């Protein structure tokens, strides 16, 4: 076993050296494929992050009955805060509500001076939920609580928003799926071509009495090395490149919620792990599978 491993490693390294042109071509191809895949993963990850950020802004507005005392108001706020899935609750008094409205009117705020003393607005709660899909059921539950006059979460808008975020996630997923398939196809084709270029060698080995595994073993290791090398290049690139890109983007669109900081590093780390495993797997399995038709001698 150890002898086989040593032999395989020796042969694989020798072959990488002797077929340097081919090795270079395969490593480049693997690296390029995986870089594209990584970019897509990162874009998809950011789209998801963005969708989540947008979704997180959806709030439920709970209007409190006009006859409610400040005490019932606080009690209601507490009750709502205690509900499952509720992330935060903010109390907005009728005075604060009018103030906000005034701000929205901007330069035409004198319009509201007229209604100042009569203030027709009501106290309300702004409720944020932990996960977007909880908006509808939570609103439903709240509407049945005592002291609640009306519950509003902009149904039409939320439906639209969710279908957009879902769509964006789909697009991201679709691209990742497409790229994964493409990567698998291209890398295995490349491996197939490198094996094809050495078909005679393989035939000779068989004729001299080598077993299939004896021949496969160095090819497998060689594929493994090539795949890991290519993936390593990609990993280095994303590790250095992604934070830089985010930095650039934040200068242009500072208000967009991009994956950055520790979360981004974690994401890139995980992406890179996937890439290295994928590269190694495709290299190893690809060359092993490609060998098959040339082993029939």
């Amino acid at each position, binding site marked *: 076993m150890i*002898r086989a491993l040593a032999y395989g490693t020796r042969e694989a390294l020798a072959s990488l050296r002797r077929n340097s042109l081919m090795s270079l071509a395969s490593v480049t191809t693997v690296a390029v494929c995986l870089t594209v895949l990584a970019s897509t993963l990162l874009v998809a990850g950011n789209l998801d992050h963005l969708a989540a950020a947008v979704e997180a802004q959806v709030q439920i507005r709970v209007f409190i009955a006009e006859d409610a005392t400040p005490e019932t108001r606080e009690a209601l706020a507490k009750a709502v805060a205690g509900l499952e899935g509720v992330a935060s609750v903010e109390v907005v008094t009728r005075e604060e509500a009018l103030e906000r409205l005034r701000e929205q009117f901007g330069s035409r705020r004198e319009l509201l001076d007229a209604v100042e003393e009569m203030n027709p607005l009501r106290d309300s709660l702004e409720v944020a939920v932990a996960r977007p899909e909880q908006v509808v059921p939570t609103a439903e539950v709240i509407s049945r609580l005592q002291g609640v006059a009306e519950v509003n979460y902009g149904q039409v808008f939320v439906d639209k928003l969710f279908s957009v975020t879902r769509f964006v996630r789909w697009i991201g997923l679709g691209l990742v799926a497409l790229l994964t398939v493409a990567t698998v196809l291209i890398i295995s084709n490349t491996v197939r071509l490198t094996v094809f270029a050495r078909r*005679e*060698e393989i035939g*000779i*080995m*068989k*004729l001299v009495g*080598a077993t299939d595994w*004896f021949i496969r073993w160095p090819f497998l290791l060689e594929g493994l090395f090539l795949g890991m090398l290519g993936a390593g290049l990609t990993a280095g690139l994303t590790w250095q490149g992604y934070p830089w890109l985010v930095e650039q983007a934040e200068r242009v669109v500072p208000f967009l919620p991009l994956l950055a900081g520790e979360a981004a590093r974690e994401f890139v780390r995980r992406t890179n792990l996937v890439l290295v495993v994928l590269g190694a797997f495709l290299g190893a399995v690809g060359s092993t599978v490609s060998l098959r038709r040339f082993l029939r001698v």
Partner: protein
Amino acid sequence: MIELVRVTKVFPNGVVALQDVNLFVDRGEFVFVVGPSGAGKSTLVKLLYREEVPTEGEVYVDGRDVARLRPGQVPPLRRQIGVVFQDFKLLPNKTAYDNVAFALEVIGASRREIRRRVPQALDLVGLRDRARAYPNQLSGGEQQRVALARAIVNNPWLLLADEPTGNLDPDTSWGIVRLLEEVNRRGTTVVMATHARHIVNAMQKRVIALRRGRVIRDEHHGRYVRDDDELSSLLEEMRAVVSP
């Protein structure tokens, strides 16, 4: 022990390379296979290490029907047989040394064993100083001798040599044939397909002559062609030598 029973080989393109061949070669024999170009010598040899399978009939090597071997049984068969291929079949990415070592690595020999036996084998064919050359850095005859070294390095019980002196000068050829004789004397069965008339004639071994895929002659202490033809051509040659 080799036995061919009513063997016919027809290639997919319709060429009949062997037809109704019956043959028995005992362990320890030294057999020449002769015949004109395209007679079926190489095909006969290829049947023995199962590069080809017969269209009809059975080929027994060491008591086993070679055509009926499961895929997993083919490598063990080939590892017991040394083959000098007509076109050498050296691994282009390995040096002469590594090519010979490969035959030992295949049978799982230890590195010490390899370091001991490979130089020996290269010595025997007179190529010790070319050990580090790659096949494309060797002359035709040198490549042929590397192929021979690879075939004998793991002491096979059967040595198949397909035209092993085609690229060698007469002196080197004789050296190689003496080597084969020595290998044979130590117990290896040797089957050698060849065109080297003088070697066949001088060796006085069994000669199997093929012609258009059929065995037309099978003689112990045989010659390349029948004696009368042989004598007259020798006489002709002598005349040329004596009176330039």
